[in-house]
């Protein structure tokens, strides 16, 4: 890989960190990291005048995220192919974990509104796992670019 491509990837990783930060800020502001916050956001709260979300409303939010999560995950993960982590059990685990956590993060709101309220914990856990994995993969890539 040429030096210029390495620079481009490092900048992409910096943008990824900014995306993670903005995602956390948005989640914290709109939903909150407590089980009660997530439950109230999706199921509504009369005390706080929060309207319950409908499946159509959730689908409207989810739709662009399905494509965005897939594209972002693919771009980030495919850079691992150019590092020493290519074809290792470690990178395979990262691929499955990243896509699984993304799927759970995207679709858990439907389970919450359809009655499986314990999915509020899955929503929080999958969000934290996805963001942490992005940071971890970014760190792996950054390390490979600096050292290799």
């Amino acid at each position, binding site marked *: 890989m*040429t*030096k*210029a*491509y390495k*620079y*481009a990837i490092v*900048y*992409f990783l*910096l*943008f*990824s960190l*900014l*995306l993670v930060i*903005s*995602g956390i*800020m*948005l989640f914290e*502001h*709109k939903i909150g990291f407590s089980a009660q916050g997530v439950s109230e956001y999706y199921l509504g709260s009369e005390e706080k005048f929060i309207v319950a979300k409908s499946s159509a409303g959730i689908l409207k939010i989810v739709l662009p995220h399905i494509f*965005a999560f897939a*594209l*972002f995950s693919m*771009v980030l993960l495919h850079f691992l192919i150019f590092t020493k982590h290519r074809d290792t059990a470690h990178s395979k685990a990262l691929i499955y974990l990243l896509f699984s956590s993304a799927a759970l993060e995207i679709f858990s709101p439907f389970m919450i509104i359809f009655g499986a309220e314990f999915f509020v914990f899955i929503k929080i856990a999958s969000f934290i796992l996805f963001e942490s994995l992005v940071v971890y993969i970014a760190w792996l890539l950054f390390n490979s670019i600096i050292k290799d």
Partner: protein
Amino acid sequence: MKFTLIKKLSQDKSMRPILTGLLLFTLLYILSDVLVKYVNFGVFPDAINVTLFGDEEQYIDPLSTSAFLEFWHVEIFFIMMILLTLSAVFVRVSKDDTSKIILLSALMICALFSLISLVLAFFVAKIFVLIYSILFFIWHAIAVYMILYSLGKLYYDKSI
């Protein structure tokens, strides 16, 4: 990103029009981005200030934190994907390593700091609106230059 692996882009009958299409659409996106922002958000400090913080005299409400964070989040995603794609093409078609790294860095750093300035303007101090506006124009101008340069290289440089 297969075009990064093709040895002679200038002689590849399929890849050259594909990359031309990609570059033209990227150019269209960059120019449209300026126009859309000019109409809906503002590209000059005064207009951005009104959008972000409202204006009592014109009865314009300030942007809510939630709406701002959604806007910022989407902006980051689109900019990072567009610039990664553009930089991949630009790096492939240009020869001089030092100058292309300088231009690539200028583009990425300006875009990155324009996004950081925007969030600082909303949450910390209004002065960052001016920095955002300047960096916004700089990174758009660099992107346009890189697109035109890449198109020129695709058609007039037989060595790539």
